[in-house]
């Protein structure tokens, strides 16, 4: 494996087992800087586990994970993790603004600079007038937006997203997909995006990687050559989109068999 040093995330022959059961085996994967890579695969194949390793929450048993050229041993502040269960990942006793503030407090941003930055970040995710609401007063889509704003407050070079829109309704999901794409285009962040939704993977990704289960390993690595910016209607009707979707569908069907 030619592990280029300027890749954002490098999995170098990574293996992991839980209680003697291999979960990920000999996984090698490069994610280039600024690239959006979507990970798909049948349930339980190790997508979340791979993401948690890229976030430094779990250490591989074998091999190394490198982020921005450095071996990863612990989480880093420039690697932000968007969890699927936004309801659990937010502090319910803090308002939307105060939740975003947590990341700024962690980074040691001076108190005087925080309100301005929080306002900008919340506006960016479409929550401009909801600063003083508590998460429990907001819809699922809005809660996930808070979490995304908190992650953006980390000024991340890498965004790790674990089925971030999986629990949202179709309309909200499409809205957030486009918001995410425009934010990423603006910041140039690298994105590692886990999803169950094949169309979502093709729509968002520069590349889609399919994992095979037991133990987790790469089964397919597809380049997505669709023009950007992408459009919910036009992109999804392109022959190339349909072809990629078909290929992935066949892959998943075989992987689950």
């Amino acid at each position, binding site marked *: 494996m030619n592990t280029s040093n300027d890749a954002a995330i490098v999995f170098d022959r990574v293996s992991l087992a839980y209680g003697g059961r291999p979960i990920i085996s000999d996984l090698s994967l490069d994610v280039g800087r600024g690239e959006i890579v979507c990970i798909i695969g049948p349930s339980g194949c190790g997508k979340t586990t791979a993401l948690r390793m890229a*976030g430094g*929450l779990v250490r591989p048993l074998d091999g190394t994970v490198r982020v921005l050229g450095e071996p990863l041993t*612990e*989480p*880093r*502040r420039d*690697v*932000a*993790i968007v*969890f699927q*269960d936004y309801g*659990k*990942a937010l*502090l*319910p*006793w*803090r308002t939307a603004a105060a939740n975003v503030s*947590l*990341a700024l*407090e*962690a980074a040691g941003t001076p108190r005087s600079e925080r309100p301005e930055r929080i306002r900008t970040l919340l506006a960016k995710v479409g929550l401009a007038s909801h600063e003083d609401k*508590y998460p*429990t*007063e907001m819809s699922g889509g809005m809660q996930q937006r808070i979490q995304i704003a908190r992650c953006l407050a*980390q000024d991340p070079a890498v965004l790790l997203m674990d089925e971030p829109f999986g629990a949202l309704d179709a309309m909200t999901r499409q809205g957030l997909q486009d918001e995410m794409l425009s934010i990423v285009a603006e910041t140039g962040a690298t994105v590692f995006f886990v999803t169950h939704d094949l169309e979502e993977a093709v729509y968002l990704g520069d590349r889609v990687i399919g994992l095979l289960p037991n133990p987790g390993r790469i089964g397919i690595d597809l380049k997505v050559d669709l023009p950007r910016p992408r459009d919910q209607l036009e992109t999804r009707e392109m022959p190339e989109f349909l072809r990629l979707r078909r290929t992935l569908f066949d892959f998943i069907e075989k992987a689950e068999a």
Partner: protein
Amino acid sequence: MKWSRLLSLLASFLVTALFVLAWKLVADYKLVSPVFLPGPDRAWTSLVRGFTTGDLGVKFLATVERMFWGWLIASLIGVALGAAIGTSPKLRAYLAPMLEFLRPLPASATIPVAIAVLGLSDGMVLAVIAFGALWPVLLATIHGFAAVEPRLYEVGRALRLSRATVIAKIALPSASPDILAGMRLGLTVALILSVVCEMIAGRDGLGNWILLAARSFRAPDLYAGVILLGLLGYFTAIAIGLLEARLLVWRSRAR
């Protein structure tokens, strides 16, 4: 919402008024000997007299002070110890059986032990109160800290928060509803033990006042003391309720 609150307030007033009326009737028709049950009017007169010419005020304050300090000590130790135990699964496993053994011991059972060790002193009384009020706070705090959403700890890790920051900004606020519930219980225990200790150890206070009144058949004085105790319990509960409402806005604002 507003109306239903007003209505329930009115209803509770009505119930109280009916109770006092029933008390008055029972006393007036001497269904119970006036030696044991004076009417509410006589108890009230005695209460007023106790405050104006007697030293009921001093005794009342002594009990309040005792209860407050005992409760405060119990709360501080309970929260600190509970945080340490609640955040460490290992400590929890070691200490859980012993805590379960000590917990159901009635706090008043510790009084003879405390007297033997500390003598009939104010320090002894404070120790007994603090010890008794410690349990509800400690157990609630342990539970609160053990029940912190693991995902939030991961958020703390991802943001590279220090251990102290994680406790201050994540674990403590998350456990605060449990802690406050424990402190509310602890306050009740502290009041009960204050009175019991005053009776047993003969310290100045409401408990002693009630005991002496009973021994010398001054029934109105006795009831004045009991009424005062009731009021004390009632208003401390309201005070802590207000504190809870202030600290836990986020809970009441939930959909």
